[in-house]
């Protein structure tokens, strides 16, 4: 039992109201929670109309000129996903048989697939863009149960981490029920980038003994291929 359960319960009671206002019936699951202290993975998706396919996998372009950036941070140990979604040029009303119309689906590029997570729909933030951000904790439900079982049941965030390219994200509207925009998930690295080893560029630079082996970890790789010159 996590020590924060009580706090989460109180928060979810508060956020359930706003979720209910913007997204219809809120479930007891899919709880809105505070941001966790750490993440196990991060993903982004550039969603565009040309990526949309219908339920039969047939290309079905979404809203012309629309785009969506979907940024996700996952803590798969706590089954929490934080979302930061921005849509430009997408015209509500939203429409979907699921509880909301903004989803992560399981499906590779060009293929249809069932929704696994339903997020609160992005709403106008005053700048003209539609925004939705927060964190949800599973187990997840979508409100869609074509064969009697909710399409979120049995899903866990670890499945996204294992194979992000098998998942896509989208928003559905009344005019574009197959999707106004859609994009496949791609991984982004976490934390800073380790691109320095010497201290020569340091703001606190001081001379040190040079000549130590620089390429830690470069051993153990198999056949080296000849460098080709790409810009002759």
């Amino acid at each position, binding site marked *: 039992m996590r020590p924060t359960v009580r706090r989460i319960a109180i928060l979810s009671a508060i956020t359930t109201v706003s979720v209910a206002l913007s997204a219809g019936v809120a479930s007891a699951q899919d709880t809105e929670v505070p941001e966790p202290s750490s993440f196990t993975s991060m993903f982004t998706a550039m969603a565009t109309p040309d990526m949309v396919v219908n339920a039969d996998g047939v290309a079905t372009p979404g809203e012309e000129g629309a785009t969506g950036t979907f940024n996700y941070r996952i803590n798969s140990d706590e089954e929490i996903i934080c979302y930061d979604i921005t849509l430009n040029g997408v015209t509500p009303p939203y429409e979907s048989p699921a509880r909301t119309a903004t989803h992560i689906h399981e499906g590779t590029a060009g293929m249809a697939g069932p929704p696994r997570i339903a997020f609160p729909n992005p709403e106008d933030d005053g700048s003209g863009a539609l925004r939705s951000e927060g964190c949800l904790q599973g187990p997840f439900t979508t409100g869609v149960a074509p064969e009697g079982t909710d399409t979120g049941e049995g899903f866990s965030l670890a499945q996204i981490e294992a194979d992000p390219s098998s998942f896509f994200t989208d928003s559905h509207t009344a005019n574009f029920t197959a999707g106004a925009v859609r994009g496949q998930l791609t991984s982004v*690295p976490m*934390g800073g*980038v380790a691109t320095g*080893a010497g201290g020569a560029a340091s703001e606190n630079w001081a001379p040190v003994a040079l000549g130590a082996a620089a390429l830690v970890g470069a051993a153990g790789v198999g056949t080296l291929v000849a460098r080709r010159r790409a810009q002759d």
Partner: protein
Amino acid sequence: MTTAPTALTPPPVVAPAEPAAVAIPSIGVRSDLLHLGLAADGSAEVPADYALAGWFREGGRPGGRGPTVLLGHVDSRDGPAVFYRLRDLSPGDAIEVATGDGSVARYAVDRVEQVPKDEFPTFEVFGATRDDVLRLVTCAGDFDRGERSYTDNLVVHATRL
């Protein structure tokens, strides 16, 4: 926890749309590009060769939506490395990225920013963008000799011309 560099050589054949080399005339940079992914700890894989920059292959590529992200070391234990002079770039400076089919995409620097690694703006650098943009990343700030690591990253933001 591994931050050891792992990518050793550029791929022998680069797909037509994928970045093969970068040139930054104003600071004398010219490098074939390694193709980089994620390290085991979820951080960005970085070049094993300090003389070469690398392309983060999970992200964008020239001609598409962005961002195209290139990573390069500022220095090694032996001295300056491929992106040592990145901090000298100014708005408007040109950056050229050649792709596998030999075409060259030209970008212009918008801004150069220094960010603490422990507050790295992941999605400002690696997050999906509507436009064809380029990011160059290296190290900056104070150097921690115990960790053999810099405290900050330098990020160059550029837009397709």
